[in-house]
Each structure stands twice: as structure tokens, then as C-alpha cells.
């Protein structure tokens, strides 16, 4: 008996047998582990693995262990499609996590939808990803959901009446952030004194800031990445502009404290996750991550960690029959009802519709945590 087991193990290890006979639940992970997007993909993988070890350590799901098959999609569309096909048709995974970038998700998620396999994104925030179809899920909160909350809290706390807007107009991410800010400002009926733009790679923001200064705004709403946003903050302070900055996810990075050192105070950002959030689930996550990785987690690790628990919750409701397509569909049907409280707080799904108004995939319903920078750290604003 013992010997047979070793033999099977060896055969599995060398790829002679396919694994389903061992009654494991196979989940594919397609993330950018090399290339520019690896700065997000690597922590995402670590978040999955941390949750996986915890779940398997407690005996798995209904007695079955989860196995991850990890592939590198390099942050490229073409590679994401290749990896998706390999995981779905060759490895015959039950479901997929990934890919890292929204750009890739637009290209590869239709492959999963076509094969009727759940694809679960933990870092795709662009509009329109989940409208691809009803097998597409994500727990990453979109900018469209976060920015209005950030604005609302900033209005409450600072009593601002009118704002000036500054944004990067030649980058998809900062431009769509601007569109979402604009929508939110209209909803909140906050007048805009002046709208100024800059281009990627710009280093001089003083003309725009001088104009903003003379427009008598109460705050500066800024859709920028840290590379341009931080120098803009420094130059604003040099011009004697002490106004609060209200930023999007692009400004939600500890790099602000480095690049805008001594001038980083009074920046307002919203995020689904904060290292400062004192909730029990979050503290447990941070401690476990630090123990396993010897490094502090970021938002991407936190969202991946939670996503694994969301899937685990759904899997508990699914009776795995061994018939692949039936199991894949059963998992898809169990997912929408999942509600958990994880490192990123209370979470549930919300169904979105596609272009024709028909019900499609699922976005996250989650409260953003609004933070303000003070003395080189983020302080949560309630």
C-alpha cells in the first residue's frame, strides 16, 4: 500500500498520471511573474499561496486539498491567452485566477468565458472587464467605486466647496480616473474652478499650479501616477499652495513619502485595503504574511488572499463530482452568493450587465477606506 502510494506520487510528479484521481481541486493561476507588471503579479501569487496554505493546513475543502497551477503571463495579452488555454484545456483546472492587468484581461477573459470556466481577477480595475460574460468575477474594487467615496469623505472632513482638477491626459489610467472624478464631482454638485492637464514625463507643473492657486479652489483633485503626482505636490507647496490633494489609486503608494518628502502631507486617497486598518482579519493577515514572507504585504497581496477565501467559501457549497464541466458550472453558480469578511473588510458580489443590458459577470461590493497622509504615513479617516 505504502509503496503504491509512493509510486503514484512519483508518476504524478513526472507527469505520467493526471491528478484528478487524487481528488485534489485544481485551480489555475495566471499572473505576471516577470516583466514590468511583476511588481503586482508577484505579491498576488504570494497572497494566493498564503491563503492556500492556511486552507489546506486546516484540512482543505470537504476533505479535498486545493492545488495551484501557477503560470507566468508576463503582463502581455498574447501570453495571457496562451496561458489561459493551457490551464483550461491541458491542465483541466476547475477555475482560473488572473490575469494581472486589465489590458490582458480584456483579451484573455473571453477565452475562459467561451469555455465556461470561472475566471477571477484580483487586480483588474478597468471598466468593462466583468461585462465580458457571466463566468467573469473580480474582487478588485474599481476606481469608479472608490473615487466618489474618497471625495465624499474629504468634503465632510474639510468642508471644501469648490475644487480645481489636475490630471494626466495621455495615459489611459489617469484619464479614466479623471472621467470618474468628473462624474463624482457632478453627482456631489461640487463646482470645478479650473481643469488643468499635464503629459506623461512632464516635470514642470508650476504654470498649471499657479493658475489653480489664483482660481481660489478649496482643494486640488488630481488623477496622476506617483511619478508625476509627487513632484506636482512638492511644487505646489513651493508656490505656497497649502490645499489638500485628493488623488486616485495611482497616488496610493508609499512612494509618495519618498518622492514628495516633507511635502507629502494632506493627500487624500481611497483604497480597498490599508495596512493601518485595525480589523482583526486584517491584523491576522498582515502577521501571517510577514511571518511567511518576511516583508510587509501590499494591497495586491491582500486582494489575492481574500479572493482565495471567497473561492474556498463557494467550494464548500459545491459537490465535486469529477465531471469537469458540471463541476465548473456548479462553482460558477455557487460564487455569487459568497459573503466573507477578509483582510479588505466585508465583501460580497454584485452582478453587472453587458453592453446590451443583459446580466453578465460580477464586481465587488466593498467599502473603500479613505486615508490622509500625515507625517509620512497614511491615517485612516472615518
Amino acid at each position: 500500500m505504502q509503496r503504491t502510494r509512493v509510486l503514484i506520487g512519483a508518476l504524478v510528479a513526472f507527469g505520467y498520471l493526471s491528478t484528478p484521481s487524487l481528488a485534489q481541486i485544481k485551480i489555475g493561476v495566471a499572473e505576471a511573474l516577470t516583466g514590468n507588471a511583476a511588481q503586482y503579479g508577484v505579491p498576488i501569487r504570494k497572497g494566493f499561496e498564503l491563503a492556500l496554505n492556511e486552507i489546506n493546513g486546516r484540512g482543505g475543502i470537504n476533505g479535498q486539498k486545493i492545488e495551484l497551477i501557477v503560470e507566468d503571463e508576463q503582463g502581455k495579452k498574447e501570453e495571457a491567452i496562451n496561458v489561459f488555454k493551457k490551464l483550461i484545456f491541458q491542465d483541466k483546472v476547475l477555475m482560473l485566477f488572473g490575469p494581472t492587468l486589465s489590458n490582458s484581461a480584456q483579451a484573455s477573459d473571453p477565452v475562459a468565458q467561451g469555455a465556461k470556466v470561472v475566471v477571477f481577477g484580483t487586480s483588474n480595475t478597468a471598466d468593462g472587464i466583468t461585462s465580458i460574460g457571466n463566468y467573469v468575477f473580480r474582487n478588485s474594487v474599481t476606481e469608479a467605486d472608490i473615487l466618489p467615496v474618497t471625495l465624499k469623505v474629504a468634503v465632510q472632513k474639510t468642508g471644501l466647496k469648490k475644487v480645481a482638477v489636475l490630471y494626466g491626459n495621455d495615459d489611459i489610467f489617469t484619464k479614466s480616473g479623471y472621467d470618474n472624478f468628473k462624474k463624482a464631482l457632478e453627482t456631489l454638485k461640487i463646482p470645478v474652478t479650473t481643469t488643468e492637464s499635464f503629459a506623461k514625463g512632464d516635470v514642470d507643473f508650476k504654470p498649471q499650479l499657479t493658475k489653480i492657486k489664483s482660481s481660489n479652489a478649496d482643494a486640488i483633485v488630481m488623477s496622476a501616477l506617483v511619478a508625476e503626482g509627487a513632484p506636482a505636490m512638492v511644487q505646489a507647496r513651493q508656490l505656497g499652495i497649502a490645499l489638500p490633494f485628493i488623488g486616485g489609486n495611482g497616488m496610493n503608494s508609499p512612494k509618495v513619502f519618498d518622492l514628495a518628502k516633507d511635502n507629502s502631507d494632506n493627500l487624500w486617497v481611497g483604497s480597498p485595503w490599508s495596512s493601518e486598518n485595525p480589523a482583526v482579519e486584517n491584523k491576522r493577515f498582515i502577521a501571517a504574511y510577514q511571518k511567511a514572507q518576511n516583508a510587509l504585504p501590499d494591497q495586491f497581496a491582500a486582494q489575492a488572499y481574500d479572493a482565495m477565501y471567497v473561492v474556498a467559501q463557494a467550494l464548500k457549497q459545491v459537490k465535486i463530482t469529477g465531471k469537469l464541466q458540471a463541476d465548473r458550472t456548479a462553482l460558477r453558480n455557487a460564487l455569487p452568493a459568497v459573503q466573507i469578511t477578509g483582510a479588505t473588510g466585508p465583501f460580497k458580489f454584485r452582478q453587472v450587465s453587458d453592453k446590451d443590458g443583459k446580466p453578465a459577470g460580477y464586481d465587488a461590493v466593498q467599502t473603500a477606506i479613505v486615508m490622509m497622509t500625515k507625517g509620512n504615513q497614511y491615517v485612516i479617516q472615518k
Partner: protein
Amino acid sequence: MLAQQLVNAISLGGVYALFALGFTLIFGVLNVVNLAHGAIFMLGAYTALQAVVLFKFPLVLALGAAIVVTGVAGWLLDRLIFAPLRARQAPHLAPMIATIGLAISLNSTIQGIFGAENLRFPVHGLAAEGLQFGGVQITWLEIQIILLALVLMAVLLWWLKHTRMGCALRALAESRKAAALLGIDVEGLFRMTSVIAALLGGVAGVLIALYTNAVFPQMGQPMLHKGIAVVILGGMGDIRGALLGGFFLGCAEVFSVAYVGSTMRDAVAFGLLFAILLLRPDGLFGKAAPRRA
């Protein structure tokens, strides 16, 4: 607002002028459009940054380190690229293409070592503190950049006019053959010009990195585009032109943001530049048969 925008314009103009000085010098004497000037500018900034971060140099010493490193880079640039091409009497485009290659290699090397993200000098006070009068703010650093651009221009002009070496350089700019016949060490002068132009680029890199708070591998690219515009506007190879062109472009950009709109910043600035070149095809200081340097 007008007064502050004027200050912004003059500071930005000083930045452009400082960058353009070395660029125009090398064109005036070597007759080469040095497209690696932006990369050398970047090299200066990274050298000073490393000197401050790694070796805890004070800023003045870090500037010295940047001058040494970019000076050596300028020497190598002439020794390894310009001189062999001169010796082979390569056509005009060859050194230009070669400098594109050098710029790409330098950018990639720096990106490989330090990564693509923005870095910043951990020095405070200098860039932040300044003067305030009647609601107008100007930092000491901006004043230094403007003054340095003026002083360097004055020194270069004086040196070209009143020293033997400057005389030789002007002769060289006029005609390489005639200068060689007069017994001028042509090769030596070429090399020295390349060194001086490069270290001027290095100094500009350090000051502008301090001014903009941003050190990144591609930092020289936008500056190079603006620098080319400035130098063409001022008259290729003319030192006073570099300064005037710099201030002109600075004003055009700032006032197009102030009165037209920030999305039109470069469109207005470069549109004006085009209009001026239509009226004066050789630039502000250019002459029909240009006497360079």
C-alpha cells in the same frame, strides 16, 4: 498671477537654456547634432544622486562628481565615436545616428542598474526655501539656475572672444582645414569641446533634477526635444541664442498654459516656434552664412 507666471517662465527658461548651452556648443564646434546630450544630462543627475545617497557627499561635492563623470563621458564620446567617424570622413548623419545608439545604451544601462522608477535627491531646504515678495514665490534653486545660465553664457562668450584657446576654437568652427594649416591642434580642441559640452550637460542634469524633484532614466528625452527646439530657435551653434531661445520657449509654454489651456501647452509653444522660423529661418541669432561658436 501674471507676476508669478513670469517668474515660472523665467525659471523654466533658465532650465532650458542651461541644457541647451552644451548642446549648442558641440554643434557649433564639432558640427554634430549630439542626440546623446540628454543621456549625459541624465548621467550627471544619477552620478550626483549616488554620490549623495551612497557616499553621503554634500551637494557641492556631488556636483563635482557629476562634472568629473560626465566630463570623462564627453572625452570617451569623442574618443570612441566622434574621432573615428571624423577620421573616416563619415557623412553628416553618421555621428547623429551613433549618438542615438549611445543614448539608448546609456538609458538602458542606468535603467538596468537603478530601475525605471523615479528617484529623488534626499536633500531638503535648497529647493524648498526661497523668497517671497508680493505673493510671488521663487526658490533659491530657481534663482541659482537662472544666474548660472547667465554666468555660464557670459563666461563662454568671454572665453571664446578673449582667450587664445577661444580664438582657436572659433577658427576651428570657421574652417577645420584652415585651422589645421595654422598649426592649431584640431583633434585636441575637438576633444576638449566634447568634454566641456558634456560636463555642462552634467551640471544641468544635477540642477534640473533638484529643481524638478525627479531623477529617472528617461529624464533627458523630453529635455532633448525642448533643447533641440531652443537651439534651432536661437540659431544653431550660437551661445547667446541658446539662452534667448531657452527663455523664449519657457515663456511660450508658461503663457500658453496661463492663457490658452494646459492641454495646448506644447502645441502653442511649438506653433510659435514654427512661426518664428518661418520669419527667420536661421533662428534669432542665425546669419545667412552662419559664423558658428
